[in-house]
């Protein structure tokens, strides 16, 4: 891999907590796997408020996926030591 010699001051990549990044990855992967496994929900019963399982189950995943994506977002920030606004928590800010 060639590194960019003309791309200005090269700064270090923020060191990240690997475990937290992996956990975030799992949170992001779960909705994809769950929804691609169509056989697990392509059925009519049990109904919820007269709505067949197939439909309410997918609607439920809208909220689950949203929650998981948000958790992954916070995990990735935390793994890199950033606050909710994406700013460094520590005082050092590199060689800007």
């Amino acid at each position, binding site marked *: 891999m060639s590194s*960019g010699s003309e791309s200005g001051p090269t700064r270090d990549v923020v060191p990240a907590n690997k475990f937290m990044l992996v956990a975030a990855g799992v949170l992001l992967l779960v909705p994809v796997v769950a929804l691609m496994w169509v056989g697990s929900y392509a059925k009519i019963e049990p109904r919820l408020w007269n709505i067949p399982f197939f439909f309410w189950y997918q609607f439920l995943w809208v909220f689950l996926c949203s929650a998981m994506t948000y958790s992954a977002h916070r995990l990735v920030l935390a793994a890199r030591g950033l606050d909710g606004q994406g700013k460094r928590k520590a005082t050092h800010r590199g060689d800007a």
Partner: protein
Amino acid sequence: MSALLHEPVTVMATDTSVNGTALAVLIILFLVVTVLGFSAARFMRGDNLDSLDEWGLGGRRFGTWVTWFLLGGDLYTAYTFVAVPAAMFATGSVAGFFAVPYTIVLYPIIFVFMARLWSVSHRHGYVTSADFVRGRYGSRELSLAIAVTGFLATMPYIALQLVGIQAVLEVSGVGGGDNWFAADLPLLIAFVVLAAYTYTSGLRAPAVIAFVKDALIYLVIIVAIIYLPTKFGGWDHIFGAAQDKMATTNEATGKPQGSFVPGDGQMWAYATLGLGSALALFMYPHSITASLSSSSRNTIRRNASILPAYSFVLGLLALLGWVAIAAGTQPIGLDGEANPQLVIPQLFEDAFPAWFAGVAFAAIAIGALVPAAIMSIAAANTFTRNIYKEWINPRATPKQEAKVSKLMSLVVKAFALVFVFTLDKQNAINFQLLGGIWILQTFPAVVFSLYTRWFHKWALLVGWAVGMVYGTVQAYQVINPATGKHFGGSLDMIPMIGEMGYIALTAFVLNILVTAALTLALRAAKVDNGTDETTAYDYQADADDPRVAKDLQEGTTALGAEGV
């Protein structure tokens, strides 16, 4: 399976008269939006619209809210309002409801790579995915392939929007007639208005109109999903009516009319349509434009956790196709033929007072105009930067660039009209799926390259070409049994698995296999893999990075780089 996707609808009653009140409301709202569109040039304005950054990226000054609306504009389109419910109405859940898992898994997917693309783009001033590939490999050829694909794939997607506008006009009773010119005249007028204000105001036009559009759309959606199911016997009755209709035998094919829930042999189709569409969406130039015009790396990821709200509403809109079944809606065109694309406008016209039907029509029409404008601007940006400036006129001035972009935004829309007039409009959702087949072939070169330079640039180019040819040939060979036209659907047998699946994903897998195999060969032969101008840090930089800040400020003078 493709046979399931296009079924004639039994003709029982015809109401082709002009709906005066609805049409008047539609025209008034359309005029309001047109005025807004033309005056948008002044919205958060920078120096002038003569630079591509100003015209095509709104000066990159859009914060969380505007970005949210712009991204929403990508999702709430004629696809959501017309094509998906029409597919549900005609052939059921495999043809239409896959849009729900599609728009759910979309966000984890963009969460993963879009922040990296945002960072590297703002460190290096990239505006398109082709720019990035050019910087990553120093490869003009690969960059050209990405740009051409983006330009091409946008056309059927814009065509889908035009079909949506046409559906509304047809139900309100205008656009019929004996010759093709009179029949298509209202569509052409809408097209000219769209083209004109896009030309003069650039990305600011859709950004301003998006507020009006979303207000109208939410109003209509809330009324529709609360009022209509109750009016037509409740969800129990609606699902019952849909189940009955899907189980009846279609005379043309001897198979069931459609699917209530995916049955045996349809699981792969449902899953691959969802996954393929999700992987494809953020490869389109307009999605990348919308994401890059956000003011920080964080905006994108925060949005990725808010945006699923759109998916929930999309699911309810899809089910309106089944509400129409329970309501006995007869979507008959002005030519007297059944056309499922008309089902939602027709349902609104039947169920609502005329003035509210007019509001709903306006919501659908404007909801198609906004994305059509965004898409054509993004495709034009790609053309200018990666084809015109790279291959035709490297010394182009910013003024020339903006001029070429404006002209190309007209050209891409004109080609979209060609798609409308030549392809099978009975199954408009297929327009979007066709675009997906093409655009997904750029995914390896763009997304894989955000993480690694292991893949070889020539291997990526050949893999892309193989995927494009395979996908196009397979899609061409799908013939609509009802009309005998080519490009009649987007499902085909998946080799080795032996089940029907979305052609885009099959072509994508083939693309990756070819790319990986060739990469091994080229690396073994030590063929040069170009020069990389990016560094590992580029992929994590945020708005506080001086170079990113400078890039965000480009084109802005006094107003500063903060979003709204």
